[in-house]
């Protein structure tokens, strides 16, 4: 595979099966150093399995993964110290206080007292300062999530993997988290994000891979991904009652609050054609609104279109 010396992660032909279920089926792609990378896919697509393999929690059946050139199996010590993973589940050790937990985690990575100022800084940045001596078991879900994020960053890894870090958390934490991650990213940290909030991925990620059923469906820059969509959306509200012309009915993609949304192929369905058809049917418009496709439209199209072939052998 084309592994560049700047690749933060190189994933090559990774396969993993749980019994008869093929969780990952030959996944290959590279994540460049310093990228903010989105790994998207529906539930059960294989995202968390891939992250677990990278983190060393799951053994790979076939293929290999490198973290900044260090193989996660043969050179696992080096590979593991280069990554920090925020797990999806809210796991914690009930025996310890927040600050103790972070210092312990730093110690696992060979960091002693020299890491304490960084821990103090993270406590401030993640709004955990007033909880530093609180027992882990007394924290709310959002606070536990903040501690998990701090734990993943405690050894200052150059590659950070966030597995649905904002699932079920409030707006405040999302803002805090993305501000902090953007700051780290600006300093050169590679960030890999999985999320079900596609607007987050669209706003933050430079490149995105969409995987489904254990295969990479697409991997492109976010801009390319948005441009590749051949449709645009037109929302109309009719001023008078009447049936939508026959020619427009197949284009309806949704109805909400009396408005109808049409999905128009940029080449086949010019907006002027819609207006002409409406006028011919004697229908007047009360309101018109156009919308460009967002990541969610593309995501739905890619993960619901069964006829579309997956990117074989991996995309770059």
């Amino acid at each position, binding site marked *: 595979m084309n592994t560049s010396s700047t690749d933060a992660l190189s994933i090559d032909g990774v396969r993993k099966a749980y019994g008869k279920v093929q969780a990952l089926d030959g996944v290959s792609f590279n994540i460049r150093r310093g990228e903010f990378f989105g790994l998207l896919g529906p539930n059960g697509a294989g995202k968390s399995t891939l992250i677990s393999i990278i983190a060393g929690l799951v053994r790979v059946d076939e293929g290999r993964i490198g973290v900044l050139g260090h193989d996660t199996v043969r050179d696992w010590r080096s590979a593991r110290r280069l990554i920090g993973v925020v797990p999806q589940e809210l796991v914690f050790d009930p025996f310890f206080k927040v600050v103790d937990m972070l210092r312990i985690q730093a110690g696992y990575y060979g960091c002693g007292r020299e890491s304490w100022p960084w821990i103090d800084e993270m406590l401030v940045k993640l709004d955990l300062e007033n909880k530093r001596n609180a027992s882990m078991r007394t924290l709310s879900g959002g606070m536990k999530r903040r501690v998990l994020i701090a734990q993943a960053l405690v050894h*200052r890894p150059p590659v950070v993997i966030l597995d649905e870090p904002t699932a079920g958390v409030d707006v405040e934490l999302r803002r805090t988290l993305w501000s902090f991650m953007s700051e780290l990213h600006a300093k050169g940290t590679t960030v890999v994000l999985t999320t079900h909030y596609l607007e987050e991925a669209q706003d933050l990620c430079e490149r995105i891979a969409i995987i489904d059923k254990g295969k990479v469906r697409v991997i492109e820059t976010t801009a390319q991904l948005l441009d590749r969509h051949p449709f645009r959306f037109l929302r109309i509200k009719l001023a008078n009652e009447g049936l939508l012309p026959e020619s427009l009915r197949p284009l309806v993609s949704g109805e909400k609050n009396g408005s109808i949304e049409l999905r128009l192929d940029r080449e086949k369905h010019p907006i002027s054609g819609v207006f002409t058809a409406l006028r011919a049917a004697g229908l007047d418009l009360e309101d018109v609104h156009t919308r460009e496709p967002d990541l969610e439209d593309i995501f739905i199209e890619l993960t619901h279109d069964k006829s579309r072939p997956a990117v074989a052998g991996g995309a770059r």
Partner: protein
Amino acid sequence: MNQEKKPTLLPPETDLARFSDRVGFVTLTVKEIKRFWNVLGQTVTAPVVTALLYLLVFAQAMQGRAQVYPGVSYTEFLVPGLVMMTVIQNAFANSSSSLTQSKIMGNLVFLLMAPLGAWEWFAAYVVAALVRAALVASVMLLVALLFVPLPVHAPLALLAMFLLSGASLAVLGLIAGIVASKFDHLAAFTNFIITPLSFLSGVFYSVHALPPFWYTASHFNPFFYMIDGFRYGFFGQADVPIGLSLLWAAGFLALLSTICLWMLMTGYKLRR
């Protein structure tokens, strides 16, 4: 050839990530000690009280009835056996409950993702279990000494038997923790293996007083050698030679350590 400057592997601030086996091992050891230290009432006081109750009840009921060693009263005979039984049970409980709890709570991922190898895990859990066992044994001996004077015939044998036995059970606890996927499994391990073997190991009697079948059967119980060898350290007399007890304890430790290290190195039941 690409002429661009090859990036350094890590930005300067990631110097903190420099790996140190020693720091990782010490951190895990201290964390495991703090874990039981945070609940001392449950992990130290309770087993000491239980063992002292055994001492009180059996000493009262059996004094003058049971045949033990010449010149050794039954109460004196009982104390080392009870101390070793407590060491066995607590060393096992420390590593097994810690690992099982981490698995069930899910926080084991922090350890599994860390750059800590099988040997660091192994050593840290064993050392922490030995610290707890030593604490329980010391408190129990101190309290018992208020009522029962005990000689110390061979301190090195005492220390060796403590270390070999405590380490063996700590390793067995690690194995149980790795195998168990719920507390029920761990309870089965404790109730059907550890407790029967420790009660049938000559804590409360000399095996010479047993019928032939049970006398022979006792010699296949590794806990018997642990208790017998420990008792030798106090009195200079035992049911079997101290060399044999040391050999059994060391062999048991070597066997269990091999199995445990294999499990840790391969990720058996830890990494899917």
